[in-house]
Protein backbone atom coordinates (compact mmCIF):
# COMPACT_ATOMS: atom_id res chain seq x y z
CA UNK A 1 0.00 0.00 0.00
CA UNK A 2 1.25 3.51 -0.80
CA UNK A 3 0.97 6.29 1.75
CA UNK A 4 -1.96 7.82 -0.11
CA UNK A 5 -3.72 4.45 -0.12
CA UNK A 6 -3.08 4.04 3.61
CA UNK A 7 -4.53 7.50 4.29
CA UNK A 8 -7.60 6.84 2.15
CA UNK A 9 -8.06 3.44 3.75
CA UNK A 10 -7.82 4.96 7.25
CA UNK A 11 -10.24 7.79 6.47
CA UNK A 12 -12.73 5.35 5.02
CA UNK A 13 -12.32 3.06 8.03
CA UNK A 14 -12.83 5.87 10.52
CA UNK A 15 -16.01 6.99 8.75
CA UNK A 16 -17.43 3.49 8.92
CA UNK A 17 -16.25 3.12 12.52
CA UNK A 18 -17.98 6.36 13.53
CA UNK A 19 -21.33 5.27 12.16
CA UNK A 20 -21.11 1.77 13.55
CA UNK A 21 -19.92 3.04 16.93
CA UNK A 22 -23.03 5.16 17.28
CA UNK A 23 -25.29 2.23 16.31
CA UNK A 24 -23.41 -0.13 18.64
CA UNK A 25 -23.66 2.31 21.55
CA UNK A 26 -27.41 2.42 20.98
CA UNK A 27 -27.56 -1.38 20.99
CA UNK A 28 -25.33 -1.67 24.05
CA UNK A 29 -27.59 0.70 25.96
CA UNK A 30 -30.64 -1.38 25.08
CA UNK A 31 -29.22 -4.89 25.39
CA UNK A 32 -26.01 -4.54 27.38
CA UNK A 33 -27.26 -2.08 29.98
CA UNK A 34 -31.04 -2.64 30.06
CA UNK A 35 -31.35 -6.23 28.86
CA UNK A 36 -33.62 -5.53 25.87
CA UNK A 37 -32.58 -7.74 22.94
CA UNK A 38 -33.27 -5.41 20.02
CA UNK A 39 -33.05 -7.30 16.75
CA UNK A 40 -34.81 -4.48 14.92
CA UNK A 41 -32.06 -1.83 14.97
CA UNK A 42 -32.26 -1.54 11.19
CA UNK A 43 -35.65 0.13 11.55
CA UNK A 44 -34.22 3.11 13.47
CA UNK A 45 -31.10 3.33 11.29
CA UNK A 46 -33.10 3.17 8.08
CA UNK A 47 -35.70 5.53 9.53
CA UNK A 48 -33.00 8.09 10.25
CA UNK A 49 -31.52 7.69 6.78
CA UNK A 50 -34.75 7.64 4.76
CA UNK A 51 -36.58 10.42 6.55
CA UNK A 52 -33.50 12.63 6.56
CA UNK A 53 -33.07 11.94 2.85
CA UNK A 54 -36.72 12.64 2.19
CA UNK A 55 -36.81 15.92 4.12
CA UNK A 56 -33.29 17.24 3.51
CA UNK A 57 -33.75 18.53 -0.04
CA UNK A 58 -37.23 19.88 0.79
CA UNK A 59 -35.92 21.73 3.83
CA UNK A 60 -32.85 22.99 2.00
CA UNK A 61 -35.05 24.51 -0.72
CA UNK A 62 -37.20 26.22 1.89
CA UNK A 63 -34.47 27.44 4.21
CA UNK A 64 -32.09 28.55 1.47
CA UNK A 65 -34.90 30.30 -0.39
CA UNK A 66 -34.35 28.37 -3.59
CA UNK A 67 -37.11 29.11 -6.08
CA UNK A 68 -38.14 26.07 -8.07
CA UNK A 69 -41.33 24.28 -8.97
CA UNK A 70 -39.54 20.97 -9.49
CA UNK A 71 -40.30 18.05 -7.22
CA UNK A 72 -37.38 17.66 -4.77
CA UNK A 73 -37.49 13.84 -4.96
CA UNK A 74 -38.58 13.14 -8.55
CA UNK A 75 -36.31 15.89 -9.99
CA UNK A 76 -33.73 15.45 -7.27
CA UNK A 77 -30.60 15.82 -9.39
CA UNK A 78 -31.74 19.09 -10.98
CA UNK A 79 -32.92 20.58 -7.69
CA UNK A 80 -29.62 19.77 -5.98
CA UNK A 81 -27.80 21.61 -8.75
CA UNK A 82 -29.51 24.73 -7.37
CA UNK A 83 -28.89 23.85 -3.68
CA UNK A 84 -25.34 22.55 -3.60
CA UNK A 85 -23.58 25.69 -4.86
CA UNK A 86 -25.10 27.62 -1.92
CA UNK A 87 -23.83 24.98 0.51
CA UNK A 88 -20.40 24.90 -1.10
CA UNK A 89 -20.05 28.63 -0.58
CA UNK A 90 -20.95 28.62 3.13
CA UNK A 91 -19.56 26.18 5.70
CA UNK A 92 -21.67 27.72 8.46
CA UNK A 93 -24.95 27.23 6.61
CA UNK A 94 -23.85 23.69 5.87
CA UNK A 95 -23.00 22.97 9.51
CA UNK A 96 -26.33 24.48 10.57
CA UNK A 97 -28.15 22.20 8.15
CA UNK A 98 -26.08 19.25 9.35
CA UNK A 99 -27.23 19.85 12.92
CA UNK A 100 -30.83 20.17 11.77
CA UNK A 101 -30.62 16.97 9.72
CA UNK A 102 -29.08 15.06 12.63
CA UNK A 103 -31.93 16.22 14.87
CA UNK A 104 -34.37 15.00 12.22
CA UNK A 105 -32.45 11.72 11.97
CA UNK A 106 -32.55 11.25 15.74
CA UNK A 107 -36.23 12.13 15.95
CA UNK A 108 -36.98 9.71 13.11
CA UNK A 109 -35.08 6.99 14.90
CA UNK A 110 -37.03 7.70 18.07
CA UNK A 111 -40.31 7.52 16.16
CA UNK A 112 -39.31 4.19 14.66
CA UNK A 113 -38.28 2.94 18.09
CA UNK A 114 -41.62 4.00 19.53
CA UNK A 115 -43.64 2.44 16.70
CA UNK A 116 -41.80 -0.85 16.93
CA UNK A 117 -41.69 -1.20 20.71
CA UNK A 118 -44.95 0.33 21.94
CA UNK A 119 -47.10 -2.70 21.08
CA UNK A 120 -44.70 -5.09 22.74
CA UNK A 121 -42.92 -3.16 25.51
CA UNK A 122 -44.66 -5.07 28.25
CA UNK A 123 -43.65 -8.43 26.81
CA UNK A 124 -40.83 -10.52 28.19
CA UNK A 125 -37.46 -10.16 26.50
CA UNK A 126 -37.71 -12.95 23.92
CA UNK A 127 -41.18 -11.93 22.72
CA UNK A 128 -40.12 -8.29 22.52
CA UNK A 129 -37.05 -9.37 20.52
CA UNK A 130 -39.17 -11.21 17.96
CA UNK A 131 -41.53 -8.26 17.61
CA UNK A 132 -38.66 -5.83 17.08
CA UNK A 133 -37.12 -8.20 14.53
CA UNK A 134 -40.36 -8.25 12.54
CA UNK A 135 -40.75 -4.48 12.58
CA UNK A 136 -37.21 -4.03 11.30
CA UNK A 137 -38.24 -5.31 7.90
CA UNK A 138 -41.11 -2.92 7.40
CA UNK A 139 -39.35 0.29 6.44
CA UNK A 140 -37.46 -1.19 3.49
CA UNK A 141 -40.77 -2.37 2.10
CA UNK A 142 -42.21 1.14 2.51
CA UNK A 143 -39.08 2.77 1.06
CA UNK A 144 -39.21 0.56 -2.03
CA UNK A 145 -42.90 0.87 -2.65
CA UNK A 146 -43.72 4.46 -1.70
CA UNK A 147 -41.94 6.75 -4.18
CA UNK A 148 -42.52 10.13 -2.43
CA UNK A 149 -40.37 8.94 0.48
CA UNK A 150 -37.01 8.45 -1.24
CA UNK A 151 -37.91 7.93 -4.88
CA UNK A 152 -38.59 4.21 -4.73
CA UNK A 153 -35.99 1.55 -5.63
CA UNK A 154 -33.68 4.06 -7.34
CA UNK A 155 -33.37 6.11 -4.17
CA UNK A 156 -32.47 9.77 -3.90
CA UNK A 157 -29.49 12.07 -3.38
CA UNK A 158 -29.03 14.43 -0.46
CA UNK A 159 -27.73 18.00 -0.34
CA UNK A 160 -23.94 17.95 -0.15
CA UNK A 161 -23.45 19.49 3.27
CA UNK A 162 -19.74 18.64 3.21
CA UNK A 163 -19.26 20.19 -0.24
CA UNK A 164 -17.69 23.37 1.25
CA UNK A 165 -14.55 21.30 1.99
CA UNK A 166 -13.88 20.83 -1.72
CA UNK A 167 -11.26 18.15 -2.41
CA UNK A 168 -10.99 17.48 1.31
CA UNK A 169 -14.71 16.62 1.58
CA UNK A 170 -14.25 13.09 2.82
CA UNK A 171 -11.58 14.08 5.33
CA UNK A 172 -13.74 16.77 6.89
CA UNK A 173 -16.82 14.58 6.72
CA UNK A 174 -14.97 11.80 8.52
CA UNK A 175 -13.62 14.18 11.15
CA UNK A 176 -17.09 15.58 11.84
CA UNK A 177 -18.61 12.10 12.02
CA UNK A 178 -15.88 11.00 14.40
CA UNK A 179 -16.53 14.07 16.55
CA UNK A 180 -20.26 13.29 16.69
CA UNK A 181 -19.47 9.67 17.60
CA UNK A 182 -17.08 10.71 20.38
CA UNK A 183 -19.60 13.19 21.79
CA UNK A 184 -22.30 10.52 21.85
CA UNK A 185 -19.89 8.06 23.47
CA UNK A 186 -19.15 10.53 26.26
CA UNK A 187 -22.86 11.26 26.68
CA UNK A 188 -23.86 7.60 26.94
CA UNK A 189 -20.94 6.76 29.21
CA UNK A 190 -22.00 9.51 31.63
CA UNK A 191 -25.68 8.56 31.41
CA UNK A 192 -24.99 4.96 32.35
CA UNK A 193 -23.17 6.10 35.50
CA UNK A 194 -26.10 8.16 36.80
CA UNK A 195 -28.82 6.80 39.11
CA UNK A 196 -30.97 6.47 35.96
CA UNK A 197 -28.34 4.17 34.46
CA UNK A 198 -28.22 2.24 37.71
CA UNK A 199 -31.92 1.47 37.45
CA UNK A 200 -31.51 0.30 33.85
CA UNK A 201 -28.85 -2.16 35.00
CA UNK A 202 -31.03 -3.29 37.88
CA UNK A 203 -33.84 -4.04 35.44
CA UNK A 204 -31.40 -6.00 33.30
CA UNK A 205 -30.10 -8.01 36.24
CA UNK A 206 -33.41 -8.79 37.90
CA UNK A 207 -36.61 -7.35 36.54
CA UNK A 208 -38.89 -8.78 39.23
CA UNK A 209 -36.77 -7.41 42.04
CA UNK A 210 -36.62 -4.00 40.36
CA UNK A 211 -40.44 -4.12 40.22
CA UNK A 212 -40.58 -5.02 43.89
CA UNK A 213 -38.60 -1.84 44.59
CA UNK A 214 -41.22 0.33 42.91
CA UNK A 215 -39.47 0.84 39.57
CA UNK A 216 -41.75 1.39 36.56
CA UNK A 217 -40.15 -1.22 34.31
CA UNK A 218 -42.15 -0.24 31.23
CA UNK A 219 -41.14 3.41 31.46
CA UNK A 220 -37.45 2.64 31.86
CA UNK A 221 -37.41 0.09 29.05
CA UNK A 222 -39.17 2.56 26.78
CA UNK A 223 -36.62 5.24 27.68
CA UNK A 224 -33.77 2.88 26.83
CA UNK A 225 -35.31 1.92 23.50
CA UNK A 226 -35.96 5.57 22.63
CA UNK A 227 -32.44 6.72 23.48
CA UNK A 228 -30.92 3.77 21.61
CA UNK A 229 -33.18 4.44 18.64
CA UNK A 230 -32.24 8.14 18.61
CA UNK A 231 -28.60 7.11 18.34
CA UNK A 232 -29.37 4.69 15.52
CA UNK A 233 -31.38 7.38 13.72
CA UNK A 234 -28.48 9.81 14.00
CA UNK A 235 -26.13 7.16 12.62
CA UNK A 236 -28.47 6.53 9.69
CA UNK A 237 -28.70 10.24 8.93
CA UNK A 238 -24.93 10.68 9.19
CA UNK A 239 -24.24 7.81 6.81
CA UNK A 240 -26.79 9.12 4.33
CA UNK A 241 -25.25 12.60 4.42
CA UNK A 242 -21.73 11.21 4.12
CA UNK A 243 -22.66 8.96 1.20
CA UNK A 244 -24.69 11.70 -0.44
CA UNK A 245 -27.40 9.28 -1.49
CA UNK A 246 -29.83 6.72 -0.10
CA UNK A 247 -31.55 3.66 -1.57
CA UNK A 248 -34.05 1.40 0.23
CA UNK A 249 -31.45 -1.27 0.86
CA UNK A 250 -30.64 -0.91 4.56
CA UNK A 251 -30.65 -4.58 5.38
CA UNK A 252 -30.83 -6.47 8.63
CA UNK A 253 -27.38 -8.01 8.23
CA UNK A 254 -25.48 -4.74 8.00
CA UNK A 255 -27.46 -2.70 10.50
CA UNK A 256 -28.71 -5.22 13.04
CA UNK A 257 -26.57 -8.35 13.11
CA UNK A 258 -23.18 -6.74 12.50
CA UNK A 259 -23.64 -4.28 15.40
CA UNK A 260 -24.64 -7.28 17.55
CA UNK A 261 -21.38 -9.00 16.61
CA UNK A 262 -19.41 -5.83 17.35
CA UNK A 263 -20.91 -5.44 20.80
CA UNK A 264 -20.53 -9.13 21.61
CA UNK A 265 -16.92 -9.02 20.46
CA UNK A 266 -16.12 -5.92 22.49
CA UNK A 267 -18.05 -6.74 25.63
CA UNK A 268 -21.77 -6.46 26.23
CA UNK A 269 -22.59 -3.89 28.88
CA UNK A 270 -19.36 -1.92 28.47
CA UNK A 271 -19.29 1.22 26.33
CA UNK A 272 -15.50 1.04 26.12
CA UNK A 273 -15.80 -2.61 25.12
CA UNK A 274 -18.38 -1.65 22.50
CA UNK A 275 -15.97 0.92 21.04
CA UNK A 276 -13.09 -1.56 21.02
CA UNK A 277 -15.24 -4.30 19.50
CA UNK A 278 -16.52 -1.97 16.81
CA UNK A 279 -13.01 -0.77 15.94
CA UNK A 280 -11.60 -4.30 15.80
CA UNK A 281 -14.50 -5.61 13.74
CA UNK A 282 -14.58 -2.72 11.27
CA UNK A 283 -10.79 -2.79 10.87
CA UNK A 284 -10.72 -6.53 10.23
CA UNK A 285 -13.65 -6.26 7.85
CA UNK A 286 -12.01 -3.47 5.86
CA UNK A 287 -8.65 -5.27 5.78
CA UNK A 288 -10.25 -8.49 4.56
CA UNK A 289 -12.16 -6.49 1.97
CA UNK A 290 -8.99 -4.79 0.76
CA UNK A 291 -6.80 -7.84 0.53
CA UNK A 292 -9.20 -10.69 -0.17
CA UNK A 293 -8.78 -10.74 -3.92
CA UNK A 294 -5.07 -11.49 -3.41
CA UNK A 295 -6.16 -14.80 -1.87
CA UNK A 296 -8.59 -15.70 -4.63
CA UNK A 297 -6.22 -18.11 -6.43
CA UNK A 298 -5.66 -20.07 -3.22
CA UNK A 299 -9.23 -20.45 -2.01
CA UNK A 300 -11.74 -23.11 -3.10
CA UNK A 301 -14.64 -20.67 -2.89
CA UNK A 302 -15.58 -17.21 -4.10
CA UNK A 303 -13.69 -14.62 -2.02
CA UNK A 304 -16.86 -12.51 -1.84
CA UNK A 305 -17.78 -14.71 1.13
CA UNK A 306 -14.43 -14.41 2.87
CA UNK A 307 -15.57 -11.58 5.20
CA UNK A 308 -18.57 -13.50 6.43
CA UNK A 309 -16.54 -16.67 6.88
CA UNK A 310 -13.64 -15.13 8.81
CA UNK A 311 -15.72 -12.77 10.90
CA UNK A 312 -18.21 -15.53 11.63
CA UNK A 313 -15.36 -17.77 12.83
CA UNK A 314 -14.03 -14.94 14.98
CA UNK A 315 -17.45 -14.49 16.54
CA UNK A 316 -17.75 -18.20 17.32
CA UNK A 317 -14.28 -18.17 18.86
CA UNK A 318 -15.16 -15.21 21.07
CA UNK A 319 -18.49 -16.70 22.15
CA UNK A 320 -16.82 -19.97 23.15
CA UNK A 321 -13.59 -18.76 24.75
CA UNK A 322 -14.40 -15.23 25.86
CA UNK A 323 -18.20 -14.81 25.92
CA UNK A 324 -17.94 -11.69 28.05
CA UNK A 325 -16.05 -10.03 25.16
CA UNK A 326 -12.66 -8.38 24.91
CA UNK A 327 -13.45 -5.98 27.75
CA UNK A 328 -15.63 -7.23 30.60
CA UNK A 329 -18.26 -4.91 31.97
CA UNK A 330 -16.68 -3.34 35.03
CA UNK A 331 -18.74 -2.57 38.05
CA UNK A 332 -18.58 1.18 38.50
CA UNK A 333 -18.23 2.65 41.94
CA UNK A 334 -20.90 5.12 42.87
CA UNK A 335 -19.73 8.72 42.17
CA UNK A 336 -20.92 10.00 45.54
CA UNK A 337 -19.09 7.19 47.32
CA UNK A 338 -15.69 8.03 45.91
CA UNK A 339 -13.46 9.45 48.64
CA UNK A 340 -12.71 13.14 48.45
CA UNK A 341 -9.16 14.25 49.21
CA UNK A 342 -8.45 13.68 52.88
CA UNK A 343 -11.71 11.81 53.60
CA UNK A 344 -12.06 8.17 54.43
CA UNK A 345 -14.06 6.06 52.02
CA UNK A 346 -17.62 5.39 53.31
CA UNK A 347 -17.76 2.09 55.14
Amino acid at each position, binding site marked *: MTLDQVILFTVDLLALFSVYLIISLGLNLQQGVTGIPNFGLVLAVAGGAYITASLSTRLAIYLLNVHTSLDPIVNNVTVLQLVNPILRSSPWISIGLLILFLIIGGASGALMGLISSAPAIRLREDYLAITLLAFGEILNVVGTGYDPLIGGPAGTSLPDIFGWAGQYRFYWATLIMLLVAVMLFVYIERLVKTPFGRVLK*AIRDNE*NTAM*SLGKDITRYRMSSILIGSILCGIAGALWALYSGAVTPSYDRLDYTFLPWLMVLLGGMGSNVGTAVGTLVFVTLDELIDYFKYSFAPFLPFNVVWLNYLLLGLLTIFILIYRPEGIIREKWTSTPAARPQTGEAKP*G
Partner: protein
Amino acid sequence: MKEVVTSFGKLRALDGVTLSVEAGSVTLLIGPNGSGKTTLVNVITGFQRPGGGHVYYGEKEITGWSPQRVYRLGITRTFQVPSLFGKLTTLQNLLVADKTHPGESFLKSHLRHLWINHEKETVEKASGILQTLGLAEQSDKPVSVLSGGQMKLTELGRALMSDAKLYLLDEPISGVNPTLALEIFARIVSLRKQFGMTFFIIEHRLDIALKYVDYVNVMASGKLIAAGAPVQVVSDPKVIEAYLAR
Protein backbone atom coordinates in the same frame (compact mmCIF):
# COMPACT_ATOMS: atom_id res chain seq x y z
CA MET B 1 -55.82 -11.11 54.84
CA LYS B 2 -59.28 -12.59 54.62
CA GLU B 3 -60.05 -15.97 53.12
CA VAL B 4 -57.26 -15.76 50.59
CA VAL B 5 -57.16 -18.59 48.09
CA THR B 6 -54.42 -19.27 45.57
CA SER B 7 -53.97 -22.29 43.38
CA PHE B 8 -51.29 -23.53 41.00
CA GLY B 9 -53.18 -25.90 38.78
CA LYS B 10 -54.69 -28.49 41.08
CA LEU B 11 -52.45 -27.53 43.98
CA ARG B 12 -54.16 -25.30 46.53
CA ALA B 13 -51.23 -23.24 47.78
CA LEU B 14 -53.36 -21.00 50.00
CA ASP B 15 -56.64 -22.43 51.19
CA GLY B 16 -58.82 -19.75 52.72
CA VAL B 17 -56.07 -18.13 54.79
CA THR B 18 -57.20 -15.46 57.23
CA LEU B 19 -54.59 -13.75 59.34
CA SER B 20 -53.71 -10.32 60.58
CA VAL B 21 -50.45 -8.69 61.59
CA GLU B 22 -50.58 -6.15 64.35
CA ALA B 23 -48.96 -2.82 63.57
CA GLY B 24 -45.64 -2.40 65.34
CA SER B 25 -45.24 -6.10 66.04
CA VAL B 26 -42.64 -8.66 65.10
CA THR B 27 -44.66 -11.62 63.82
CA LEU B 28 -43.22 -14.94 62.79
CA LEU B 29 -44.63 -17.26 60.15
CA ILE B 30 -43.47 -20.85 60.31
CA GLY B 31 -44.42 -24.11 58.70
CA PRO B 32 -42.99 -27.01 56.76
CA ASN B 33 -41.66 -26.54 53.26
CA GLY B 34 -44.46 -26.21 50.73
CA SER B 35 -46.98 -24.98 53.28
CA GLY B 36 -47.65 -21.75 51.38
CA LYS B 37 -45.58 -19.25 53.37
CA THR B 38 -43.76 -17.67 50.43
CA THR B 39 -46.94 -17.75 48.32
CA LEU B 40 -48.66 -15.77 51.06
CA VAL B 41 -45.93 -13.13 50.92
CA ASN B 42 -46.14 -13.11 47.11
CA VAL B 43 -49.88 -12.44 47.31
CA ILE B 44 -49.45 -9.57 49.77
CA THR B 45 -46.69 -7.95 47.67
CA GLY B 46 -48.45 -8.29 44.33
CA PHE B 47 -46.27 -10.99 42.78
CA GLN B 48 -49.17 -13.41 42.82
CA ARG B 49 -52.81 -12.63 42.23
CA PRO B 50 -55.06 -14.48 44.63
CA GLY B 51 -57.82 -16.62 43.22
CA GLY B 52 -60.12 -15.33 45.94
CA GLY B 53 -60.17 -13.37 49.18
CA HIS B 54 -58.91 -9.94 50.14
CA VAL B 55 -55.71 -8.35 51.34
CA TYR B 56 -55.79 -5.17 53.40
CA TYR B 57 -53.13 -2.77 54.58
CA GLY B 58 -54.77 -0.87 57.38
CA GLU B 59 -58.11 0.19 55.99
CA LYS B 60 -56.96 0.10 52.38
CA GLU B 61 -57.65 -2.96 50.24
CA ILE B 62 -54.60 -3.85 48.19
CA THR B 63 -55.74 -7.14 46.67
CA GLY B 64 -54.14 -7.58 43.25
CA TRP B 65 -52.07 -4.42 43.44
CA SER B 66 -48.86 -4.40 41.37
CA PRO B 67 -45.56 -4.87 43.22
CA GLN B 68 -44.63 -1.27 42.40
CA ARG B 69 -47.78 0.12 44.02
CA VAL B 70 -47.36 -2.08 47.07
CA TYR B 71 -43.77 -0.89 47.53
CA ARG B 72 -44.73 2.76 47.22
CA LEU B 73 -47.44 2.23 49.82
CA GLY B 74 -44.77 1.29 52.34
CA ILE B 75 -44.51 -2.49 52.16
CA THR B 76 -41.19 -4.09 51.31
CA ARG B 77 -39.99 -7.66 51.12
CA THR B 78 -37.01 -9.90 50.79
CA PHE B 79 -36.93 -13.16 48.86
CA GLN B 80 -36.42 -16.74 49.96
CA VAL B 81 -33.61 -17.08 47.42
CA PRO B 82 -31.64 -13.82 47.44
CA SER B 83 -32.75 -11.71 44.52
CA LEU B 84 -29.98 -9.23 43.99
CA PHE B 85 -28.75 -7.26 41.01
CA GLY B 86 -25.82 -9.46 40.13
CA LYS B 87 -23.65 -6.97 38.25
CA LEU B 88 -24.14 -4.09 40.65
CA THR B 89 -22.01 -3.60 43.74
CA THR B 90 -23.30 -4.34 47.21
CA LEU B 91 -23.69 -0.61 47.85
CA GLN B 92 -25.51 -0.06 44.55
CA ASN B 93 -27.93 -2.86 45.37
CA LEU B 94 -28.99 -0.82 48.40
CA LEU B 95 -29.09 2.47 46.51
CA VAL B 96 -31.64 1.11 44.02
CA ALA B 97 -34.09 0.74 46.91
CA ASP B 98 -34.38 4.50 47.29
CA LYS B 99 -37.97 5.47 46.47
CA THR B 100 -37.53 9.13 45.71
CA HIS B 101 -34.17 9.57 44.00
CA PRO B 102 -34.37 12.52 41.55
CA GLY B 103 -31.43 11.13 39.58
CA GLU B 104 -33.49 8.12 38.52
CA SER B 105 -35.55 10.34 36.26
CA PHE B 106 -34.13 10.39 32.73
CA LEU B 107 -34.47 14.18 32.39
CA LYS B 108 -33.14 15.05 35.84
CA SER B 109 -30.21 12.66 35.46
CA HIS B 110 -28.70 15.16 33.01
CA LEU B 111 -28.53 17.86 35.68
CA ARG B 112 -26.13 16.52 38.27
CA HIS B 113 -26.74 19.34 40.74
CA LEU B 114 -30.34 18.18 41.05
CA TRP B 115 -29.42 14.79 42.43
CA ILE B 116 -25.85 14.67 43.67
CA ASN B 117 -26.66 15.77 47.22
CA HIS B 118 -29.45 13.22 47.48
CA GLU B 119 -27.03 10.61 46.15
CA LYS B 120 -24.51 11.48 48.83
CA GLU B 121 -27.13 11.24 51.58
CA THR B 122 -28.34 7.92 50.21
CA VAL B 123 -24.80 6.58 50.02
CA GLU B 124 -24.22 7.61 53.63
CA LYS B 125 -27.38 5.87 54.78
CA ALA B 126 -26.58 2.73 52.77
CA SER B 127 -23.01 2.66 54.04
CA GLY B 128 -24.28 2.87 57.61
CA ILE B 129 -26.59 -0.07 57.05
CA LEU B 130 -23.79 -2.09 55.46
CA GLN B 131 -21.56 -1.27 58.42
CA THR B 132 -24.22 -2.57 60.82
CA LEU B 133 -24.65 -5.75 58.83
CA GLY B 134 -20.91 -6.39 58.64
CA LEU B 135 -20.73 -5.80 54.90
CA ALA B 136 -18.69 -2.60 54.81
CA GLU B 137 -15.71 -4.39 53.23
CA GLN B 138 -17.92 -5.68 50.42
CA SER B 139 -19.41 -2.27 49.70
CA ASP B 140 -17.70 -1.77 46.34
CA LYS B 141 -17.65 -5.39 45.23
CA PRO B 142 -20.19 -6.95 42.87
CA VAL B 143 -22.71 -9.05 44.77
CA SER B 144 -21.87 -12.01 42.57
CA VAL B 145 -18.75 -12.58 44.69
CA LEU B 146 -20.62 -12.62 48.02
CA SER B 147 -21.38 -15.75 50.00
CA GLY B 148 -24.99 -16.93 50.35
CA GLY B 149 -25.23 -15.48 53.85
CA GLN B 150 -23.80 -12.15 52.72
CA MET B 151 -26.34 -12.03 49.91
CA LYS B 152 -29.13 -12.53 52.44
CA LEU B 153 -27.75 -9.68 54.51
CA THR B 154 -27.50 -7.45 51.45
CA GLU B 155 -31.14 -8.09 50.72
CA LEU B 156 -32.04 -7.25 54.27
CA GLY B 157 -30.02 -4.07 53.99
CA ARG B 158 -31.90 -3.18 50.83
CA ALA B 159 -35.20 -3.66 52.64
CA LEU B 160 -34.00 -1.41 55.45
CA MET B 161 -33.16 1.30 52.91
CA SER B 162 -36.77 1.58 51.85
CA ASP B 163 -38.11 3.33 54.99
CA ALA B 164 -41.08 1.01 54.72
CA LYS B 165 -43.67 0.58 57.44
CA LEU B 166 -44.18 -3.15 56.88
CA TYR B 167 -41.28 -5.52 56.24
CA LEU B 168 -41.94 -9.01 54.91
CA LEU B 169 -38.71 -10.94 55.39
CA ASP B 170 -38.42 -14.41 53.87
CA GLU B 171 -35.82 -16.40 55.85
CA PRO B 172 -33.57 -13.38 56.55
CA ILE B 173 -31.00 -15.31 58.57
CA SER B 174 -30.61 -18.50 56.56
CA GLY B 175 -26.93 -19.03 55.86
CA VAL B 176 -25.94 -16.40 58.43
CA ASN B 177 -23.71 -17.26 61.40
CA PRO B 178 -25.54 -17.46 64.77
CA THR B 179 -23.85 -14.39 66.30
CA LEU B 180 -24.82 -12.14 63.41
CA ALA B 181 -28.25 -13.74 63.22
CA LEU B 182 -28.88 -12.75 66.83
CA GLU B 183 -27.64 -9.22 66.08
CA ILE B 184 -30.00 -8.98 63.12
CA PHE B 185 -33.01 -9.92 65.17
CA ALA B 186 -31.92 -7.58 67.93
CA ARG B 187 -31.72 -4.78 65.37
CA ILE B 188 -35.17 -5.66 64.04
CA VAL B 189 -36.60 -5.35 67.55
CA SER B 190 -34.78 -2.07 68.09
CA LEU B 191 -36.12 -0.64 64.82
CA ARG B 192 -39.59 -1.68 65.84
CA LYS B 193 -39.22 0.12 69.17
CA GLN B 194 -37.63 3.22 67.68
CA PHE B 195 -39.70 3.74 64.55
CA GLY B 196 -42.80 1.60 65.05
CA MET B 197 -42.01 -0.60 62.05
CA THR B 198 -43.86 -3.87 61.58
CA PHE B 199 -42.03 -7.07 60.73
CA PHE B 200 -43.57 -10.22 59.32
CA ILE B 201 -40.87 -12.85 59.13
CA ILE B 202 -40.72 -16.32 57.63
CA GLU B 203 -38.02 -18.28 59.38
CA HIS B 204 -37.06 -21.86 60.21
CA ARG B 205 -34.38 -21.07 62.81
CA LEU B 206 -36.73 -21.06 65.79
CA ASP B 207 -33.86 -21.24 68.29
CA ILE B 208 -33.02 -17.65 67.36
CA ALA B 209 -36.30 -16.20 66.08
CA LEU B 210 -38.59 -17.20 68.96
CA LYS B 211 -36.63 -15.08 71.43
CA TYR B 212 -37.54 -11.89 69.62
CA VAL B 213 -41.04 -12.23 68.20
CA ASP B 214 -44.38 -11.13 69.63
CA TYR B 215 -46.63 -13.51 67.70
CA VAL B 216 -46.31 -16.72 65.75
CA ASN B 217 -48.48 -17.95 62.88
CA VAL B 218 -48.18 -21.53 61.68
CA MET B 219 -49.12 -22.79 58.23
CA ALA B 220 -49.42 -26.29 56.90
CA SER B 221 -50.77 -27.47 53.54
CA GLY B 222 -51.96 -23.99 52.61
CA LYS B 223 -53.94 -23.44 55.79
CA LEU B 224 -53.30 -21.43 58.92
CA ILE B 225 -53.32 -24.00 61.71
CA ALA B 226 -52.28 -21.90 64.70
CA ALA B 227 -51.69 -18.30 65.71
CA GLY B 228 -50.78 -16.64 68.97
CA ALA B 229 -47.97 -15.97 71.43
CA PRO B 230 -44.79 -18.03 70.92
CA VAL B 231 -45.08 -20.15 74.06
CA GLN B 232 -48.69 -20.99 73.30
CA VAL B 233 -48.09 -21.88 69.66
CA VAL B 234 -45.03 -24.09 70.07
CA SER B 235 -46.89 -26.23 72.60
CA ASP B 236 -49.95 -26.63 70.36
CA PRO B 237 -50.29 -30.33 69.45
CA LYS B 238 -51.33 -29.50 65.88
CA VAL B 239 -48.14 -27.48 65.42
CA ILE B 240 -45.99 -30.15 66.96
CA GLU B 241 -47.47 -32.76 64.66
CA ALA B 242 -47.32 -30.65 61.48
CA TYR B 243 -43.97 -28.97 61.94
CA LEU B 244 -41.98 -29.24 65.13
CA ALA B 245 -41.84 -33.00 65.32
CA ARG B 246 -40.16 -33.22 61.87
